[in-house]
């Protein structure tokens, strides 16, 4: 299939959070972009007048056609840890998960703190040529938290935002400068909100479960206090701030307050934080070792509430691939993270199935919201927009099996979980990059 061909998606349930559209309709792709879309388009199906001759026709059979997912927080391990994941292997996993754009954290080896490395990521992404990959660049040189990276040059090279990956920019003065300086380029600083001195040595959420298991805990306050500090720096600088993977009630409350005060603040969470709690650690299950750690049930409920009231703008997979060797270790020594790209849609749809969000709201958190936060053209079913699409059946049930993941990382905190919502087809720039085996 070439990107220049015309493809008509007929008999679809169109979902477009930007226009609030949730209706039966059709969509026409031309030259990799959306040429026509709407409920009244091609009402007679393949024999409709106006359907361009020679156009490929895809019968969506009433399934949902939505903008492709924009996963605004993934770790891709290339360069440096290609045994865990590569841009190519992650791209295949993304395509299987309905993700058409991944925004990759800079915590590779070496870290993406130099324009030449931004070039490298973009070039390798083009070579993989499956989904779109956009890089975050480092806030500080070497992710060391001391000197600012060359934000301007990094932005020119193609970085879409700044982040020090899984490390917090811990020094208040450095964070103040980062927020102030990033304003020059209109880009945001995405923080891993965790006070490192309070989290040091911790392996899971502090509380009864950690105490029972004899594991050092990370208190929920470590997240809230970093968010609260950062919000004061946002007030001081006017810089755009994004809090990544929020997991605690108090941090969400802090962001809610900041939004009410009109500060330029956004935030996201990840499926483990609204679908699981610390009990998933069970008997030292390292698949459930994440950063931030899985929290208490009250925190999980607060994350759901934050998604419902819009305090939490977006949902990202927080895909953090680890190889078996990094996970088959005593809990405290095991690496943080798990595969997330392929479970992002299905686990997010639990929020729809259990009534917390409408289908359109759930899809918005995965498409329009990250597009708006990062200023991307995708994420909408509008005329002229990139033809990045996902076709999915929100009801189709399946069971997560970590061994069968496309990602190189065969571990997931959702291993064994029954879920509903299957990606049927993923389209990037008009080209089908994934089709489910029927």
């Amino acid at each position, binding site marked *: 299939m070439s990107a220049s061909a015309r493809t008509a998606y007929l008999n679809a349930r169109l979902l477009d959070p930007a226009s609030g559209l949730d209706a039966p309709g059709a969509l026409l792709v031309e030259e990799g972009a959306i040429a026509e879309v709407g409920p009244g388009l091609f009402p007679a199906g393949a024999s409709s007048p106006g359907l361009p001759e020679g156009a490929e026709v895809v019968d969506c059979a009433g399934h949902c056609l939505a903008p492709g997912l924009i996963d605004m927080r993934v770790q891709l391990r290339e360069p440096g840890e290609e045994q865990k994941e590569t841009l190519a292997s992650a791209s295949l996993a993304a395509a299987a998960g309905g993700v058409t754009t991944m925004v990759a954290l800079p915590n590779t080896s070496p870290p993406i703190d130099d324009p030449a490395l931004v070039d490298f990521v973009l070039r390798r992404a083009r070579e993989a040529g499956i989904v779109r990959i956009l890089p975050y660049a480092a806030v500080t040189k070497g992710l060391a938290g001391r000197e600012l990276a060359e934000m301007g040059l990094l932005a020119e090279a193609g970085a879409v935002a700044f982040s020090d990956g899984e490390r917090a920019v811990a020094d208040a003065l450095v964070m103040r400068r980062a927020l102030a300086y990033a304003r020059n380029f209109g880009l945001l600083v995405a923080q891993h909100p965790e006070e490192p001195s309070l989290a040091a040595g911790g392996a899971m959420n502090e*509380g009864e479960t*950690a105490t029972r298991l*004899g594991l050092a805990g990370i208190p929920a306050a470590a997240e809230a206090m970093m968010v609260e500090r950062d919000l004061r720096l946002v007030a001081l600088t006017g810089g755009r701030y994004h809090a990544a993977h929020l997991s605690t009630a108090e941090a969400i409350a802090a962001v809610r307050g900041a939004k009410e005060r009109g500060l330029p603040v956004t935030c996201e969470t990840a499926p483990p934080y609204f679908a699981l709690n610390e009990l998933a650690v069970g008997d030292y299950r390292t698949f459930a070792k994440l950063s931030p750690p899985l929290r208490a049930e009250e925190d999980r409920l607060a994350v759901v509430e934050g998604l419902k009231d819009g305090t939490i703008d977006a949902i990202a997979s927080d895909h953090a691939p680890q190889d078996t060797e990094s996970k088959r*270790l*005593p809990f405290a020594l095991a690496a943080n993270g798990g595969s997330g790209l392929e479970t992002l849609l299905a686990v997010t749809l639990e929020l729809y199935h259990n009534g917390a969000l409408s289908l359109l709201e759930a899809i918005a958190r995965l498409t329009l919201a990250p597009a708006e936060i990062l200023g991307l053209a995708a994420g909408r079913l509008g005329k002229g927009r990139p033809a990045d699409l996902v076709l999915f059946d929100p009801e189709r049930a399946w069971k997560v099996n970590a061994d069968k993941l496309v990602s190189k990382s065969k571990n997931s905190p959702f291993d064994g979980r029954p879920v509903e919502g299957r990606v049927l087809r993923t389209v990037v720039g008009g080209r089908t990059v994934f089709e489910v085996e029927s």
Partner: protein
Amino acid sequence: MVADAPGSAFPHRHLLAIEGLHPPALLAVLDLADTYVEQNRDADKKRALLRGRTLMNLFFEASTRTRTSFELAGKRLGADVINMAVSTSSVAKGETLIDTAMTLNAMQVDVLVIRHAESGAVKLIADKVNCAVINAGDGTHEHPTQALLDALTIRRRTGRISGLRVANCGDIAHSRVARSNIHLLNALGARVRVVAPRTLLPAAIERLGCEAFDDMRAGIEGCDIVMMLRLQTERMHGALVPSIREFFRFFGLDYAKLAAARAEAIIMHPGPMNRGVEIDSEVADDIHRSVIREQVEMGVAVRMACLDLLTRNLLANARPS
């Protein structure tokens, strides 16, 4: 915990933790251990019960007393006992824990006794081997045979456990002994307290079934048993207490603080003791109050009982393949 050997007095394949064990299983260990106490006091201490069985002590963390205690227990039951010194093994060359487990498994060991500095490490190995595994201490998680020997010591001294008031004092945060004791004493009906400065009390410790105190006198007031714990400086991230002398001043067991406990209260310590840190030397050596040496004796008997019960289940199941 699911029974692995239904019908057995101790229906479990491994002894990994006290949490989850039911009172009948705990009492089965204590009752059998009582008989081994008597055997160990005879001139002829050796039996052939475990002849042909291989016991391996796999200690990833330095230990003299616990390893020796298991070694004696195994030998007195007639097993072949091998001590694997980890510093000279392939573990030091970077072999993973699971590789080590698989290697030992292939050697047809019947019982593995494992100590490791990481919580959960013993379970990680137990999940991969065919033999019975005894946790001889994993990180800050559990040390089940220590809790059993403590219970045996208490029961032989006071004739009961139910209804006793027991204080665990000192470094609760880093103590696997405290966690195992809380679970075991609760299961057998004692009332458990923990006493420590707030920096050494782990979060939500009360949820394990104990009352927490940060004042030593209040904590041991009216107690029948005062269990002291070693201050584990090697497991501390940063300074959790300002100094040894300050710790001893407020939390070290001396006669002045001991006066708050019941007059006949007995003093226990799992060893090794830091004299002048958590316990005053005179108190530790007080033959009328301290049962610290008796605990060591009970340790061998309890470990013999555990080996006896677990190897019966090996017989009940298939032989290790």
